């Protein structure tokens, strides 16, 4: 049995530090991951078009499933009968599911948040439905991921006024309901999510409340929604400072490589975002110098690989010029760019881990 307390199903060992950055080993029920770590997002637990073998070749260690989509199809009960999402997908490594709340609020018509939970119109028949913290946890218990997320009351960072405070306090009330509803604490790790908008006092209250619950890990939520960079980093810095050293810290919705580097410097460990695969579908490749727009006319005569420092299958085999001819015309084009982009993010994760381990992690200039 893993963990140091009955409510944990993970072991988190910090292997090395560089100022606030940490390189760690995160041992989960299904896999031993190394952080800092980017986690690709798949709705059904599958990343756009990539097979399990490809995901393993790319060194993906934890991948995300969206609880909302999984509950709709194939449904929590089916997954439960089969024995969980791991078995359903035949994925031997780790999985993380979100609570379903965020997706509902962003995707659904007339979604609203009350003290009970998230009310919404069923996408199937339009009937009013409710997702409570208990429902979210029960569904996630059936899906069976290594890490599950608490249902939180998330507001946009651009929101101001009493709604931000209301959401923060509700998030704290809901974490208790999530903890009570969690039926598999020895197999699945329930992460709490720190809310509070851009207000340092609200963030502090939330931090204190969540830390007191002694959860296996924590996420920093409610960011990456349009706030300015300075505000974003300030909140991350405050949260990492207020979270326990010996537990993993997950900044949700972060995928720009620069943001990942900065958050790592500030002491965060885990990241997720749809950005790498989404941008691939528009023909954009992530490379060391930034973003390469493959649709650009100049690419037609550029016979270099996407990224000269990348060792992935795509960069070993194909030129920018060839990919330029594929991206808007063949599905294979965006599949290959997706493959490379995920490789890029996993290489970034490995570089961060090893550079911290080896004392080479650069200092971040300026900022807080």
């Amino acid at each position, binding site marked *: 049995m893993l963990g140091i307390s009955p409510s944990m199903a993970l072991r988190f060992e910090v292997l090395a530090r560089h100022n606030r950055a940490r390189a760690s080993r995160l041992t989960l029920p299904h896999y031993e991951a190394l952080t800092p770590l980017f986690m690709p997002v798949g*709705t*059904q637990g*599958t990343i*756009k*078009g*990539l*097979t*399990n*073998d*490809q995901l393993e070749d790319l060194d993906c260690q934890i991948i995300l499933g969206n609880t909302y*989509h999984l509950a709709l*199809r*194939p449904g929590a009960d*089916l997954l439960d*009968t*089969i024995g969980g999402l791991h078995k*359903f*997908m*035949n994925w031997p490594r780790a999985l993380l599911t979100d609570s379903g709340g965020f997706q509902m609020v962003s995707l659904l018509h007339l979604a609203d948040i009350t003290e009970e939970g998230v009310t919404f119109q069923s996408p199937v028949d339009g009937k009013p439905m409710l997702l409570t913290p208990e429902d979210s946890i029960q569904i996630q218990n059936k899906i069976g991921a290594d890490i599950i997320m608490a249902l939180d009351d998330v507001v946009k960072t651009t929101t101001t006024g009493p709604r931000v405070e209301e959401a923060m306090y509700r998030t704290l009330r809901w974490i208790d309901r999530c903890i009570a509803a969690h039926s598999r604490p020895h197999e699945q790790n329930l992460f709490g999510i720190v809310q509070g908008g851009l207000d340092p006092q609200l963030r502090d209250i939330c931090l204190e409340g969540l830390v007191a619950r002694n959860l296996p890990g924590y996420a920093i939520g409610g960011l990456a929604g349009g706030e300015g960079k300075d505000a974003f980093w300030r909140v991350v810095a405050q949260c990492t400072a207020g979270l326990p050293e010996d537990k993993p810290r997950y900044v949700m919705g972060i995928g720009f490589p620069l943001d990942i580097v900065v958050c790592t410097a500030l002491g965060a460990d885990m990241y997720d975002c749809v950005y790498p695969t989404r941008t691939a579908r528009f023909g954009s490749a992530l490379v060391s110098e930034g973003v390469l727009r493959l649709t650009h006319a100049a690419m*037609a*005569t550029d*016979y270099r690989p996407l990224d000269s420092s990348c060792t992935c*299958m795509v960069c*070993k*085999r*194909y*030129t920018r*010029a*060839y990919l*330029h*001819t*594929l991206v808007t*015309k*063949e*599905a*294979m084009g965006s*599949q290959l760019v997706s*493959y490379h982009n995920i490789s890029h993010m996993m290489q970034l994760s490995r570089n961060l881990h090893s550079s911290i381990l080896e004392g080479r992690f650069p200092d971040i200039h300026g900022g807080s």
Partner: protein
Amino acid sequence: MEFTVRACSGHGRVGSLRLASGLEFETPSLLMITRRGLPVVIPPEMLMDLHPDSRACQFTPMHFLEDPLAAVVAKAGGVHKLASLTGFAMVAVARDSLGNEIAGEEASNLGASFETSSGRRIVGLEKYMEVVNACKPDLWVSLPDEVPHWVPEKRNRESVDHTSQWLDHCLSLQHAEHGNRCLGVVVGAGSLEERARSAEQAATRNVAGFSLAGFGLGEDVAQRGFHLEVAIAKLPNDKLRHVCGLGSPEEVLQAVGAGIDLLDSTYPYMLTKECLAMTFPLKMEVPLRNADRDMQPTPDHGVASGFSLAKVNLRSATYGIDETPLVTGCKCYTCKRHTKVYINQLLNSNETLAQTLLEIHNTYHYLEFFKAIRESIKADKFHEFRTWFTSQRVFGMTYDVSESFVA
């Protein structure tokens, strides 16, 4: 390049083909479909290990006519290097099996009309050979003036004349260092006399083999059989024969029975697009499925009925969660790892991985079909195999993965 006939059963034959690159494989062989050099949905690095026989692909030079791709393939040094498919056979076939319609439009002496990446246009000889030479295929089909069977006699005669002239012109433009890699086209459309004339002319040319054209255009099945027979009777026995436009299992069997060695087929992909998994049995010892005992197979029972019977089978099965693979015992990547229920859910969620997994299975299954054909020829049982296959095909050729079968 060397082609040797190893075994015969009727007019069907097993051959061994050794290309100039050193790659060797047995015929009759399936050429897998590519677009712009790459498989449509199968990850290219998975192609080598997909199946022991997954080594031969077709591609269409018509996709490589314009810049930038024309320049890119030339600069890469050929389509093998471009697509990183060294170790594969790449066969250039003028006809785009995935989409074009041959309308029998007017052709001039200089070229015929083809569907290219920039729409329908006349492709001339110089341009065609420029692209073929830039692509450096292992085998290539000469520029055809292919017409369907319903064109007037005069147009048909013209197509035979053009095709023959263009074959000579193509041969004169091929790069000497590539050796003999041309598959001379034989046309003839609706006229057996013209078909024979076309074959006679091609037979005298110094080619590696022949490509029979003008099929898969709505012709009557029996007529097609006569055309294949008439053409092949005029062709030397020791040279390769390819046919384009024929791809379904029955068409493959008819073509192989007439003496064809190579086919490019979109059949696996057509099934994948319809969310269907190929499930037909491959061994004659497997008894007919008894799903519908009263059902008498009729000679030209359409494939569509086969589909609906497969659906009937599903609905009459025990309702529940089917955690079996698409085909029990199949050794493809998909069947070794994944279940029907999983692929069903991927399809219903519009995940592209569903297409990838289905296409891997369908391609594997079709390669196994070709292997079974070769085995039957070697055992001199091709006719039995063909009869058995044609009679059993009404009972569940495919499995509809998009059908929900969870109660």
